[in-house]
């Protein structure tokens, strides 16, 4: 190929495509201060500052479509029974403006604007700040305590305290006579969640609203009581500025994480929603982000989107690597123990695909797991499929033997096979979720002739199959090790 300007351009484009990271929701995911993601009538919704919001059918592609009246800032949403409670702040002006904010709540039976049941109740004020007190009543966060059914709302921003009030879960109104409690200072965008006997208060520190220069970051403290004190991992009270970071910069083309939302997908599968202040691949605009939420020693930890690459796919059950069922091809030589120490040292070439591929069957080949020694039949290249659709927090991927188009596929009898060439069929598309313990769940988009949702599991050490996902079993978990 002649390296003329045109071809250099093509080459640059190709390299750019190869190195592209799948790091943001796709569609038009532009939002600031997203509310906790809610599912309604088979779609996902999140609302943002200034009204409106985003809607998604699969949790990966997001576009404008949510409707929230009232304007204001930083809403939150919570489903109670068969209704949705929406809280939002009517701000007095923000950093350099007034601080006489209000928190309002309202209900809706559905979040789908096209539904005949879509109608918000009249918004009511549940908390406020007078402009001079050490609090600015914006940025609400809702928690329905699973231990006793009580409804709590946190609110506030950098201007003084974060406060906690109790609401009536039937009406969304402030419980009569309830006094606000100070639970943190000098952060904003708080959210509450409960897990395993602990209440967690998540807040956002750093610079907001400055695009690529924002340093917004999400921190956490925890308490045995919803009313606090919320201490960080070093024992610092969040009333003294404590907080352990959960998510900060995206480490590259995105930065400034703020406004945590908790999204439990399944037992052991949790996500966190938030916004990045700037996505440099999307005009530096503020975008919705969804990442795995991990738990380490009782603390939430932000995970990362799955990175495309070539991997060993290792079973958590025994540590075997997923591989094609083909005859093992020996490398030259055998045992080479201590010999003449002065013998020249030479590098031994790795076994390569071209050394073995002609020994493999040309049609379908089964899959098993075995002792991993980095041979060609054990290395898998995983890449996003642009037109394959998505799921909460990620696209669908194809999983092929490195250097080939031989693709992992689900069969109608819920087993695994590899087909010689990836065709894009749904049974060749794989969803990859990082679990709360850092391992992964791998699921086919479709089991042929079945509506079952099954995952890649180990029925024996060497026998991968498809079965019901069980977070409490290592049979259901996998790791990806870079090659």
């Amino acid at each position, binding site marked *: 190929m002649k390296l003329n300007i045109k071809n250099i351009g093509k080459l640059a484009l190709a390299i750019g495509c190869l190195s592209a990271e799948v790091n943001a929701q796709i569609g038009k995911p532009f939002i600031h201060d997203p509310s906790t993601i809610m599912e309604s009538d088979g779609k996902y919704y999140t609302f943002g500052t200034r009204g409106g919001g985003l809607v998604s059918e699969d949790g990966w592609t997001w576009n404008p479509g949510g409707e929230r009246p009232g304007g204001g800032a930083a809403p939150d949403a919570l489903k109670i029974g068969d209704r949705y409670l929406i809280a939002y702040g009517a701000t007095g002006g923000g950093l350099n403006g007034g601080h006489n904010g209000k928190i309002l709540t309202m209900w809706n039976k559905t979040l789908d604007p096209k539904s005949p049941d879509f109608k918000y109740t009249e918004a009511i004020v549940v908390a406020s700040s007078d402009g001079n007190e050490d609090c600015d009543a914006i940025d609400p966060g809702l928690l329905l305590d699973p231990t006793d059914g009580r409804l709590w709302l946190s609110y506030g921003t950098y201007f003084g305290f974060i406060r906690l009030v109790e609401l009536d879960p039937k009406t969304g109104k402030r419980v009569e006579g309830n006094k606000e409690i100070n639970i943190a200072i000098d952060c904003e965008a708080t959210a509450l969640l409960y897990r395993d006997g602990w209440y967690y208060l998540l807040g956002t520190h750093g610079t907001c609203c400055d695009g690529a220069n924002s340093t917004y970051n999400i921190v956490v403290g925890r308490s045995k009581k919803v009313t606090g004190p919320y201490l960080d991992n070093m024992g610092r009270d969040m009333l003294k500025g404590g907080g352990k970071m959960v998510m900060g910069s995206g480490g590259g083309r995105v930065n400034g994480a703020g406004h945590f939302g908790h999204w439990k997908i399944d037992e052991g599968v949790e996500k966190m929603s938030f916004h990045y202040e700037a996505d440099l691949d999307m005009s530096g605009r503020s975008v919705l982000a969804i990442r795995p939420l991990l738990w380490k020693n009782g603390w939430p930890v932000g995970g990362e989107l799955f990175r495309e690459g070539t991997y060993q796919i290792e079973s958590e059950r025994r540590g075997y690597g997923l591989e094609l069922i083909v005859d093992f091809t*020996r490398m030259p*030589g055998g*045992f080479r*123990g201590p*010999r003449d120490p002065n013998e020249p040292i030479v590098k031994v070439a790795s076994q390569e695909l071209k050394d073995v591929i002609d020994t493999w069957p040309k049609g379908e080949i089964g899959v098993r797991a075995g002792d991993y020694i980095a041979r060609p039949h054990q290395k898998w290249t995983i890449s996003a499929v642009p037109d394959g659709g998505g799921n909460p927090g990620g696209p669908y991927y194809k999983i092929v033997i490195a250097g080939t188009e031989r693709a992992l596929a689900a069969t109608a009898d819920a*087993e695994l096979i590899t087909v010689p060439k990836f065709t894009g069929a749904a049974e060749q598309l794989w969803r990859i979720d990082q679990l709360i313990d850092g391992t992964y769940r791998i699921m086919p988009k479709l089991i042929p002739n079945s509506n079952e949702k099954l995952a890649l599991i180990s*029925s*024996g050490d*060497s*026998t991968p199959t498809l079965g019901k996902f069980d977070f409490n079993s290592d049979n259901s978990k996998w790791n990806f090790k870079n090659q």
Partner: protein
Amino acid sequence: MNRKHPSVMRVFIFALLSWLKISSSAVFAQGPGPRPSLPPIPIKGDTTHTLTKHFTQASSEPKKTDAKGFIQRWLVLEPVKKNIARNNIITDNFLKTTFSADNFSNDYNMIPKDGESVKIGDQDLKWYALDSKTFNFNLYHFTYALNKPKYGILVWLVTVINCTEDIENVRMSAGCNSGSMWWLNGQETMILSGDRDMIADNVTSPRITLKKGKNIIRGAVINGPGMANFGVRFIDDKGEPVKNFTISYQ
């Protein structure tokens, strides 16, 4: 000055170095080949060759599995001698070719009789109906007890699973040292290739049904150097042992 002592020492040191050189050559100067033997260490040898040390003669009464569902009753054929230097030559195709060539019968539903002999190649081999005293079946102990080859062996196995009703959606599960193949009612269910160890549930079959009545398991285990044994059971979709059947050899 005693001049003899240094001379004696020189002789001793020369002899020691010569021995070490011979020994180290034996240990290390190997080309590609099996892992070399270590220098012999005198140990108290077990010279008893008796089946009853690790097995009991199977009775005509059907037997249950052990508490974890392992099948301890097997018809076991005396070993076919095989020349296998190392176990990682045991590939899928090696197993299929070898078991096809050194087979006692192509009728995989045939149940041999305890004590009868069959001919494989030029070897006359006898069937034994035995219950293992452990969860697994140790073929090293079996061949040692019979004064037969202990290494480089192929051993055929048969057992009968008796069900009072169909048991659906279960998997046959096996571990073996080193390679093996398994059939249920004439259908191949599992192949365990490679240099494997006796690991419970190392490989499982696809989902299968144990039918009401007799179900015949055929197995073949092959091993080069080292220990040879296997363990088989059935598990359900939760990985729990299936135990609601009995085992016989007829």
